[in-house]
């Protein structure tokens, strides 16, 4: 019995000339929340569709819960839950009817069906909305309904494609509480997101860019092993300072955060503070401080290559 719920190696998928996924290697451990972090169009959805058997890979091997894809896709379906990016339950059915439909599809009936649905309705706080049409509910309610439907048959592995993209921050926090509950009950979860704060909640994550995995590991490890220094500069004319710093080859990027400029320096620079002091636009009265990297810094550093290209042009 292996401890990995997902094992993929050298996974690729092309749509015509577009390479949506290139050479993806992935190992997801059992009982963990694994994140896909990346900008829109980086291949997160394609990766999830490949791993659920909805798409066939152009190359590479996939094993999910011990099933080889795409061969065993039909068998796998009983063991996984999938929450799509776009709400995919029926807008013109009520909460009760939607869940009833899914329950019957998974072969539940009679008392077992009613019990499971009541359980889900109370777990996901849908008591007030059971007779409401799904199309008339708020983003947060719909997303809870979608999660309830995806977990109705108690899947061992749950795929969530940008589950919180249409949800306010408070609902997002509640949603993640539910995910941790599920994880505690033994479910493995793969979630894609473009929110840094969500990515930081994952046990492990992979950073994707243009279909290529740039880095993976736990958020802490990624931040520690980032391979760049982060310096915050407080200065008077940040816009101009930013422009002048960006042309220095050692500077990966610079981003304004209110009254400060967050500068990422390559770790080939031994003493980042002294290095920046020498730059001509830094005034003596400006304050410079070395800070702990955030996941966003990791993200920018990992995906920096293409940004530098765009900077040069």
């Amino acid at each position, binding site marked *: 019995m292996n401890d990995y719920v997902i094992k993929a190696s050298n996974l690729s998928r092309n749509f015509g000339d577009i390479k949506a996924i290139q050479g993806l290697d992935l190992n997801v451990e059992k009982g963990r929340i694994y994140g896909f972090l990346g900008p829109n169009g980086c291949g997160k959805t394609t990766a999830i569709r490949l791993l659920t058997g*909805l798409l*066939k890979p152009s190359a590479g091997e996939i094993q999910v819960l011990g099933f080889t894809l795409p061969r065993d896709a*039909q068998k796998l379906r*009983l063991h996984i839950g999938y929450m799509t990016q*776009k709400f*995919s339950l*029926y807008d013109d*059915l009520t909460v009760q009817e939607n869940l009833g439909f899914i329950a*019957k599809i998974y072969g539940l*009936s009679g008392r077992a069906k009613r019990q499971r649905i009541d359980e889900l309705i109370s777990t996901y706080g849908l008591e007030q909305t059971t007779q409401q049409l799904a199309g008339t509910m708020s983003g947060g309610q719909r997303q809870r309904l979608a999660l309830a439907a995806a977990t109705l048959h108690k899947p061992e592995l749950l795929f969530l494609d940008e589950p919180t993209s249409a949800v306010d921050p408070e609902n997002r926090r509640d949603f993640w509480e539910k995910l941790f509950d599920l994880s505690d009950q033994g479910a493995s979860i793969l979630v894609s997101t473009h929110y840094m704060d969500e990515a930081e909640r994952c046990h492990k994550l992979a950073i994707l860019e243009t279909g290529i995995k740039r880095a993976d590991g736990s958020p802490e490890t990624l931040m520690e092993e980032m391979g760049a220094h982060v310096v915050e500069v407080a200065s008077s004319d940040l816009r101009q300072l930013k422009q002048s710093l960006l042309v220095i080859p050692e500077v990966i990027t610079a981003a304004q955060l209110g009254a400060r400029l967050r500068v990422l320096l390559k770790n080939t620079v031994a003493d980042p503070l002294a290095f920046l002091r020498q730059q001509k636009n830094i005034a003596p009265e400006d304050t410079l401080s070395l800070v702990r990297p955030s996941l966003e810094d990791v993200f920018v550093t990992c995906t920096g290559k293409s940004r530098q290209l765009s900077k040069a042009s």
Partner: protein
Amino acid sequence: MKGLSRIQAIFSKELTQLKRDKMTFGMVIMIPLIQLMLFGFAINTNVRHIPAGIVDYSQTGLSRILIQTIGATQVVKFSQQYMNVDQAEAAIARAEIRAVLVIPKDVSQRLARHPTVGLGSPPSSDEETSRAIAQWVVDGSDTMIAAAIKSLRYMPLAELLNKPVNRSTPTFEVTLLYNPEQRTAVNIVPGLVGIILTMTMIMFTSAAIVRERERGNLEMLITTPVRPIELMLGKIIPYMFIGALQVAIILGLGYVVFNVPFNGGLWQLAGATLMFIAASLVLGLVISTLAKNQLQATQMTIFVLLPSILLSGFVFPYEGMPELAQRIAEILPATHFMRLVRGVILRDVEIIDMRYDMIWLALFTAIGLAIASFRFKKNLD
């Protein structure tokens, strides 16, 4: 067993959605109701009251009696008088009238010499005596109107002269079975069943799966254990009931309003109708696996609907079509159903005696279902 419960899940979900969709539900009832009333009254292949004009060069009592006698046939309705033929032809071009009767100055002499008026049959080479008494000028572009006017060519003239009509002996005796009064509705109403079912059944199912795809439901459905064939069957079955309901509306109203006789057996009709509904629904499913959105599905539905109306024998007799068109018509389920339904309702035929049409419908359904299930892959490739 699990498969059955999944089919049932899709079936009841489909019914609930249909119940919510008031517009579609209304269409289920209103389409057959309104179209039956409209076409039952409107379509009439016995052309009558064609607007016609007169150019009367003779202006005699005889010409006026002639005009009255022709008017009494109800084939034409004289509405205008013209001074000469040129004016009349201009009126035909303007579509004021469709035909004009030109009565020559010497109509009395012509009538007197006409063979049917009692001078016996002169030799046909005698130009003087074998002339017609007047002339019709007709807008010949519409063949049905032309044919109606042509039917006046050998109109009996005896009553013009206050003589009893000679009992003429026809060459052939014609016995009209099944529709002796020659009412068009008797032929149209059963045919309308086929047309309305073709339209609604194909339209509903072709939209049914495409809509799931458009709204993103399909992405969720295909990650569940539902098999394509279960999805197809679950979607088809509710519409079979709807189809049956529509047939009941059309034939019931046809019986009450248009007095269309129902000569056949109810089970015979049910058998033929269910086969046809199944074939149409499956065709809709095939369309839904080809179309990317609801607009495309509607376009393809119309692509099938038009030949079903025009080639199936609904209005124009199948026998009158060239061989290529007949072959195309043979492919369409509507053609076979048209024969079956008219056979059962009007002629009390047993469907076992029309098994060629039944077998074709069954074959069409089986092949279509296979294609639809095959084309509907459970992935997004």
